[in-house]
């Protein structure tokens, strides 16, 4: 029977591929990645330098996959990785990394640091070094179907409330619908106005859509914690439901990491291409707007700015759509400094929001978002990720700022021509 550290090292080994070897071979320790990390920038603590977070993986690569490292290991002169090392790195790989990927943009030799941090988490899970909060969220996702513990009956009750409010009947398990709409737990429980907003938009655009009572949750705690097996099972639930209903397209909700999970990681996790397309809600809304299927009216004059969710923009490629949508309902849209793919994270991505150990550091790191917001000078902040929205509201309250946070889908729904 193998020990936890052996299982961890085996998992690290399994993750190391040619890109990772090229990244470690190329790193010259210039430290440029530090300046791109919100946790380093707001604490000035060098341990948060992104490349330092990858030290366990670098040591496994060196000792297992390089000639000189293997020689040193055989001669007994290399330092083996211990449980204590991984224990120390838990904070660096989870609490102080939101998988935002900003560091990957600045590296002069092109190291995709966040690709390696995501993969390092596989070793951390296998060796039992994942944070308790994330373990519990993952356990709820696997057993209940939602990291926040939202059951199908709770979801249906929330849909019922939304139906009562907007007067539109929302379909469940409609065979052959064009679109299957997924949700995130935060949208169901904390920002449930999203449900009614979607129904109104789809009604006006005459979209054929459905919810599934077998798979409604789009978020994927397996990806955040770093367990491909669990992540694959969560993706498979959606794939099974979508293929059973024979929908043409699955709609990822606003939630950023849900989009990464279902759009980019999903096929690789389950080992095959989907039989349906995946579209992010912002892409669909902008498409419907361009096709003239949704008619908007009224331009807000109040200054408004937009927070780009990392997984949607930097790691997802959806940059222009939210801007075009906002500009169609606002005459006073201003960018924050460092917007688009250079945007600073809300501080709670990559599982940080589900990890209470990271709360203090997360709120401290919000200082950088405050600077951005102060520069923009807007009293309204739009975003398109329920997790970002939660984190932004949290930070705004902590720093006693006077800014209203709204979801982009709801903003569009509010401007639908009656």
């Amino acid at each position: 029977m193998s020990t936890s550290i052996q299982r961890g090292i085996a998992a690290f080994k399994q993750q190391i591929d040619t890109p990772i070897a090229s990244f470690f071979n190329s790193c010259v320790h210039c430290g440029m990645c530090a300046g791109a990390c919100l946790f380093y920038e707001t604490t000035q603590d060098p341990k948060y330098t992104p490349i330092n977070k990858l030290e366990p993986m670098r040591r496994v690569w060196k000792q297992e996959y390089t000639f000189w490292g293997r020689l040193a290991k055989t001669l007994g002169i290399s330092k083996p990785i211990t449980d204590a090392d991984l224990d120390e790195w838990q904070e660096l790989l989870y609490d102080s990394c939101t998988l935002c990927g900003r560091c990957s943009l600045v590296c002069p030799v092109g190291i995709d640091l966040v690709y390696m941090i995501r993969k390092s988490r596989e070793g951390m899970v296998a060796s039992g070094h994942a944070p308790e909060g994330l373990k519990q969220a993952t356990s709820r996702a696997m057993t209940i179907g939602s990291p926040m513990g939202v059951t199908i009956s709770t979801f249906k009750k929330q849909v019922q409330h939304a139906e009562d409010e907007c007067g539109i009947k929302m379909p469940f398990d409609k065979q052959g619908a064009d679109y299957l709409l997924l949700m995130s737990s935060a949208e169901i429980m904390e920002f449930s106005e999203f449900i009614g907003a979607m129904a109104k938009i789809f009604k006006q655009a005459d979209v054929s859509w459905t919810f599934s009572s077998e798979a409604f949750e789009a978020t994927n705690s397996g990806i955040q914690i770093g367990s491909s097996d669990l992540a694959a099972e969560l993706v498979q639930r959606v794939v099974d439901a979508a293929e059973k209903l024979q929908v043409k397209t699955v709609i990822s909700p606003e939630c950023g990491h849900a989009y990464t999970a279902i759009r980019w990681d999903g096929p690789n996790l389950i080992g095959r291409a989907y039989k349906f397309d995946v579209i992010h809600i912002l892409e669909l809304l902008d498409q419907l707007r361009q096709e003239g299927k949704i008619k908007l009216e009224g331009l807000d004059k109040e200054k408004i700015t937009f927070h780009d969710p990392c997984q949607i923009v930097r790691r997802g490629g959806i940059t222009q759509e939210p801007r075009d949508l906002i500009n169609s309902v606002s005459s006073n849209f201003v960018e924050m400094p460092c917007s688009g793919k250079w945007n600073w994270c809300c501080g709670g991505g990559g599982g940080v929001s589900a990890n209470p150990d990271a709360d203090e550091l997360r709120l401290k790191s919000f200082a950088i978002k405050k600077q951005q917001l102060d520069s923009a000078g807007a009293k309204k902040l739009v975003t398109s990720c329920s997790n970002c929205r939660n984190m932004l509201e949290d930070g705004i309250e902590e720093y006693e700022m006077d800014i209203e946070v709204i979801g982009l889908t709801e903003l569009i729904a509010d401007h639908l021509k009656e």
Partner: protein
Amino acid sequence: MTTMELLTWVRGPGMTIAIILMLFGVAVRLLEMLLLGRKKDLSVARVPSTAKYGWRTVLTRSLPSMACLKAIPVTFITGYIFHVGLLIIVVFYVPHILFIRDLTGLEWSGLPFWLIDGVTLLTMLAMLVTLWYRVWDKVRRYISRFSDYFVWTITFLPVLTGYLLYHRQFLPYNEMMIVHIVSIQLLLISMPMTKLMHTFTFVFSRWYSGEAAGRKGVKV
């Protein structure tokens, strides 16, 4: 063995041995990297050709970036100067061109001596600032290991000895020439054993990053 005989050996068989060791070592290191493999990405790409995004990043990460300049000016400026400086010295100094011509038969025009002299001074200055920054700045100091200082030394020595050789300083010409050539050979042999491997692998790392982001329609 006289100084002249030693110089002849160092320039001839010594250099051949160093180049063979370097090439063999680099080939082994590249092979051990490439043999790990990369799984095919099964997600549907936004673009018809993701490879061109890889090549784009190979190129663009060499271009000046205002974001990096603002974020980390010392590393950025000195890094730029000494990399470009090293390239100019190696490729456009006439004696180096003649040496490469003897080795490969290829030949091109060099730059004036006074210009190479200035570039060499600037390169050494930039490298010294890089070293100072590595020791002085808390991030660089925190992440640096022995190998980082070793690599700096092994890269600085050929530039310094070349400069001293040209200005006939420190040692007689032939002795200094031997020291200069040996310092280059040490640099060559160290390439596959150290972070100097980035000279070869940066193309791969940039390409993989650019290609993966390009799949999502993001230019990085």
